């Protein structure tokens, strides 16, 4: 076997190539063996057993039930924490973070708006079960079933309070993130929640440097700010926030009657315990009259601003829609081909070369892309209006004051982590631990 022969055969092959275009062609027909050689079978990898998928749903159901039971019946922070550790190990490190309830939003959105995509039943279960539980019991899912919540719960060392104005501002991000995630998933463009999932690299012990850096910064911040992802980013948390507000039952700070001891006041690392605005000594509003008048004026202003913001957002979204559509691979491909065909760029990209090799028609691609861009315009309109609405409503709710006699939990923000339970002295036997708790609460 010489190099010369190899080059000769290669030149023959090149000649053959001029006759036959790319793809699989039988340039060299399979030989007829004379020695009785049997052609081996193709090796095929088999799909993992479906049992695991059903096991996941079962584990989700069991942990949800268990954590709700522990939170309501035993009011045990330790129990909630241990279930969280289990969820972190199972859903996080063992199942490597896929599929999760947060990401399932995108599958649902994509399935609702794209008839070609069918969503597996397990994903539907991951989306629906936590919402159903939240509608009845509050966000017990966040407390310790969600692996992303659990990993932040574990690393929280010394959480400090976030100023209320910052909390309110950052608190709108999850809603906007949710809107954006639905927009990009519904147009079958990107799964941004998965793309920027901060902890999945840790769950898999594998991933790009950027993913690890993002995760590490969330974990570092999480040591001093309680659950930064849950509070300021999680789009599924935004859904559960709304569901939790109308929950039939919700964990309480106190097991029975509040005795106004103020011990729980500083116990919540998420800052969702609302202070009383009135008490037995101060039966009327604690807010002075001139401030109330100012608030009322503001409220009227914000209520007028609300539709303005919604319309402005919708208009901006409609205008930005085509720009958003450039996240879609097909749109980018069409744009690249146009750039190449009009000699605006020299080099042919891999994508455009691959498209040209398939022999697919360019007008078909243009039709498809125009359809996508139109969907992005409409999606942008809806996303923009939603953004305006969220911001407007946030401002309205900031000036609405409710009269509260007791320390109450803000049900939307509370993740039922159970930290406040131990601070409430009601129904507890006086014990040696009590002074320490009181000291901690005071300091």
């Amino acid at each position, binding site marked *: *076997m010489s*190099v010369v022969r*190899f080059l000769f055969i*290669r030149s023959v092959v090149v000649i053959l*190539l001029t006759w036959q275009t*790319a*793809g*699989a*062609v*039988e*340039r*060299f*027909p*399979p*030989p007829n*063996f004379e*020695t009785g*050689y049997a052609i*081996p*079978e*193709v*090796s*095929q*990898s*088999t799909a*993992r057993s479906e049992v695991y998928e059903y096991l996941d749903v079962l584990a989700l159901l069991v942990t949800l039930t268990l954590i709700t039971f522990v939170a309501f019946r035993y009011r045990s922070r330790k129990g909630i924490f241990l279930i969280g550790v289990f969820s972190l190990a199972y859903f996080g490190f063992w199942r*490597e973070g*896929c*599929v*999760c309830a947060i*990401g399932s939003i*995108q*599958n*649902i959105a994509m*399935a*609702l708006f794209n*008839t070609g*995509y*069918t*969503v*597996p*039943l397990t994903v*539907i279960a991951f989306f629906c079960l936590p*919402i159903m539980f939240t*509608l009845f019991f509050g966000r017990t899912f966040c407390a310790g079933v969600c692996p992303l919540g659990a990993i932040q719960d574990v690393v929280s060392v010394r959480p400090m309070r976030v100023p209320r104005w910052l909390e309110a501002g950052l608190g709108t991000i999850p809603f906007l993130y949710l809107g954006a995630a639905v927009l990009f998933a519904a147009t079958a463009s*990107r799964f941004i929640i*998965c*793309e920027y999932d901060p902890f999945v690299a840790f769950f*898999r012990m*594998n*991933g790009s440097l950027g993913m690890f850096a993002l995760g590490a910064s969330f974990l570092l911040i999480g040591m001093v700010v309680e659950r930064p992802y849950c509070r300021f980013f999680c789009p599924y948390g935004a859904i559960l926030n709304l569901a939790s*507000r*109308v929950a*039939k039952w919700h964990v309480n700070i106190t097991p029975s009657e509040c005795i106004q001891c103020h011990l729980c006041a500083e116990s919540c690392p998420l800052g969702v315990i609302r202070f009383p605005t009135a008490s037995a000594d101060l*039966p009327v509003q604690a807010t002075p009259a001139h401030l109330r008048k100012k608030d009322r004026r503001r409220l009227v202003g914000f209520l007028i601003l609300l539709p303005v913001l919604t319309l402005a957002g919708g208009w901006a979204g409609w205008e930005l829609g085509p720009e958003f559509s450039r996240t879609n*691979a*097909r749109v980018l491909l069409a744009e690249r081909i146009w750039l190449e065909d009009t000699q605006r760029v020299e080099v042919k990209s891999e*994508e455009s070369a*691959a498209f040209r090799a*398939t022999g697919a028609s360019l007008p078909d691609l243009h039709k498809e892309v125009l359809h996508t861009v139109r969907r992005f315009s409409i999606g942008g309109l809806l996303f923009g209006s939603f953004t305006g609405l969220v911001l407007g409503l946030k401002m309205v709710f900031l000036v609405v004051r409710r009269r509260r006699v007791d320390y109450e939990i803000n049900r939307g923000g509370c993740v039922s982590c159970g930290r406040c339970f131990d601070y409430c002295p009601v129904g507890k036997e006086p014990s040696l631990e009590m002074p320490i708790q009181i000291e901690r609460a005071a300091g």
Partner: protein
Amino acid sequence: MQDKDEGRQTRREFMGRGVRGACMLALGGGIGFLGSRSQGEDSLWQIDPWKCVSCGKCATECVLDVSAVKCTHNYSMCGYCQLCTGYFDFESNALNTGAENQPCPTGAIKRKFVEDPYYEYEIDQSLCVGCSKCVLGCNTFGNGSLFLQVQHDRCVNCNDCAIARACPSNAFERVPSSRPNIQKKV
């Protein structure tokens, strides 16, 4: 004052009950709608070998350290060529297994003499990294019997497959788990 307070409580509770009921109804409707369209089974990622252009991104984009994509050989399509361009580099100086003469960076492709002049080529999947250099060679000058497939025993089935995101030819697709492979056949 007391009466007014109680009235407010019941009004809020009533509204809460209404919203809760509406949410449950919407969820139920959603489940019914999506569930009726669902295939029930899970979906997996797979490469359509007819669309694959052997760009090599499967080896580098996968979230796993050694990609879940590996080369598969359909022997019935193979020409059993003595001069296999999946086995020897196009520009090889000599036809031996020297690293500079083979496209495979890990030596995962092995050959066995069958009868003159035919050789059987086998992929050692424990060594394969899914770079598709041999696939490119086989498709360029041969029958195209070598092709890439996602190995489901390795794939963690990310909701958003990183290779699918980077694939230039749109060759990645979700397939039902009952038909997890897309075989290349003539």
